[in-house]
């Protein structure tokens, strides 16, 4: 049974349509990540699921119940906001127990559930503090704890890590992964613009652009077989190189756009090369180096090297790649061909 189903969802603000015919099935216990560039509608979609935005057209099911007109608090969901949205005048414990006290849960039970959630999130020593006395990571954990306490069927995360610094983001990401592992039956929907978070956390990634679903699949699906040029370039870092036929030194694939990831290009001799370019710039990142090159037709592309790149700037370099690692797209529809 699907935990959550979207059927032909539209969202219209005045005369602007921001979500177009979004349909999606989410299984119970799945960790689904909505990813896309800013303004793609991923947060809007999440807020429609949460009940914070009206659904202009289409149907939303949670479990087997139609939820379009059910108020947010009755949908069995809990949401973690980007800004944490902690109540600044309440202690951590009161923050986490707020929904229960609104629901008139007995004090004893509130205390137990808050204590249990605090235990999971290692917040027990901070229960009596105000949010302003906590660090960013701790505040984020309180926000998550507030969601856990409600024991929701569906967890919604709206860019929960984007206010944290890089180091904390990595550790909190792992905590969220652990949290998911500890709650295998709870469905989680996570919105981010960071494809690394999407790749590392998701069971299933939904790539959105301009209010449309571009592709739905597992992280490796998306990496290995992007459905179109946009997904190909959006997933993977540095992003996929895209070549027109004329940019290539071989003409095997007329009328295709060819994509190849920087990590899949290998140095070779001029005779075997599928693409050549002049070395313009090198970024040495220690573990690997990124070389920025330009073909004679003026196309820029990136190659990922193991460390120890000895070539000097201005050299002409030649590359080929396994044919399995080449992605062919139709130049008109931008869709994948092979």
């Amino acid at each position, binding site marked *: 049974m699907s935990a959550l189903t979207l059927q032909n969802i539209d969202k219209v603000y005045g005369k602007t349509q921001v979500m177009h015919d979004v349909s999606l099935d989410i299984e119970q216990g799945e960790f689904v990540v909505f990813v896309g560039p800013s303004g793609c509608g991923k947060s809007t979609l999440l807020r429609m699921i*949460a*009940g*914070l935005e009206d659904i202009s057209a289409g149907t939303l099911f949670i479990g087997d119940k139609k939820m379009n007109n059910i*108020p*947010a*608090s*009755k949908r069995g*969901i*809990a*949401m973690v*906001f*980007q*800004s*944490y*949205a*902690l*109540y*600044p*005048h309440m202690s951590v414990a009161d923050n986490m127990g*707020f*929904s229960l006290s*609104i*629901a008139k849960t007995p004090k004893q039970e509130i205390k137990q559930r808050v204590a249990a959630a605090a235990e999971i999130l290692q917040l027990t020593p901070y229960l009596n503090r*105000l*949010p*302003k006395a*906590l660090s960013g990571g701790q*505040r984020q954990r309180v926000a998550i704890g*507030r969601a856990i306490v*409600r024991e929701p069927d569906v967890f919604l995360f709206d860019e929960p890590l984007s206010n944290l610094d890089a180091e904390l983001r990595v550790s909190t990401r792992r905590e969220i992964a652990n949290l998911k592992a500890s709650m295998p039956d709870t469905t989680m929907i996570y919105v981010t613009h960071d494809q690394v978070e999407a790749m590392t956390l998701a069971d299933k990634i939904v790539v959105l652009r301009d209010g449309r679903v571009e592709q739905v699949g597992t992280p490796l699906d998306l990496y290995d077989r992007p459905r179109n040029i946009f997904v190909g370039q959006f997933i993977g870092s540095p992003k996929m190189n895209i070549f027109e036929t004329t940019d290539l030194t071989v003409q095997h694939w007329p009328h295709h756009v060819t994509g190849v990831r920087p990590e899949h290009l290998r140095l070779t001799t001029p005779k075997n090369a599928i693409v050549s370019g002049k070395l313009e710039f090198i970024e040495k990142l220690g573990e690997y180096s990124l070389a920025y090159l330009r073909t004679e037709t003026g196309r820029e592309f990136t190659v990922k090297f193991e460390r120890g790149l000895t070539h000097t700037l201005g050299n002409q370099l030649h590359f080929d790649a396994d044919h399995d690692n080449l992605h062919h797209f139709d130049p008109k529809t931008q869709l994948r061909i092979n």
Partner: protein
Amino acid sequence: MARRIIASLLLLLLVFVWVVPFAGLLITSARSTKHANETGFWTAFQTNEIGYSFKTKGKEAIERIGDDWVIKGNIFDERNAADQHLATQNNEPRTFDIMGRVSRFGSGAANPDVAAPGDTITIRDGQFTLQENGDYVWAFASEYTKSGKTIGVRVAHPPQFGLRNYKRAFADGRIPNALINSFIVTIPATIIPVLIAAFAAYAFSWLQFPGRDLLLGIVIALLVVPLQLAFIPVLSIYANLADWAGDLSASLGWCSGQECDYPAKTFSGLWMAHTAFGLPLAIFLLRNYIAGLPRELMESARLDGASHLQIFTKLVLPLSMPALASYGIFQFLWVWNDLLVALILGPTSDLVLPIEIQKQIGTFKSELERLNASAFISMIVPLIVFLSMQKYFVRGLLAGSVKGG
């Protein structure tokens, strides 16, 4: 650096401009009438030379010592005892005692500079000697049969302060009554508009309803309606209302004749007037603050199942304390100091403090220190309110400028 110095100087100037009149009022209100009328408050902490006229004892106190007829006494003690006696008779608080040293004296009130203490001058054929401490000896060769004589004395008077003026202000009953009346008017006239405005501000910022923006526009437009414009219409509404209520209770048989005349000018009328006049600004200020609260906070509370009323009471009210407090201070000060509205719409018998003080200016024109005591009583209340709410006030003014939990 230069800017900092200028800023500090400016601040110093502001403090000076505020503190000097305050200190003047406070110091004057603790001095005696004579001191307040004859020397400035800035000299109150030094010894001042002040001219008095004293009356000596007369024939009733004369004794025979050897060949001489002598009158002995102390000008200060006699005068203080007489003043105290008078005050007790009039049921007034204890007067300020005259004290200090005699520096010059003379035989009449008009010429106090004739002799130095210890000198002997001739008054009415007697040899009059006045010591520095006020002891005098008036010796005659034959029996003296008249009453005492007024003499002029310059006294080097040390600083002297007391609570007599406050005791008098409180003792006469009108100031305490007015103080209570002022509280009766001001406290509800502050709390009611703040509460109504907080509800309205929440609705204007976080509820969707048709005509919301138009309504807000009207409220803001009301900001520019002058207060004076409304006096006559409001007063006539109150009068009609009182008439109507009187007629109604008469027709219901609840009262008869004169009993049915309800007053048009009442405390509740003042509350309503101050609420109505205060609301536009209150809604405007509070809406700006409440609309600035993070949207995600409201959404989070909605997800947590809170109704609008719960969001308002559990979230918006506590988080808006700085704004509520700072507007509350404004409204309190405005109502507390208000003379005009209270004069026109307030009760005619139960006067508020500004009206009472205004009336006392006529009665006690020459007793500056007594007026100052009343003025200080009326001043200290908003000062206490301000100081106790000051931390909210400062935070309220800075609200929104700093982000953070």
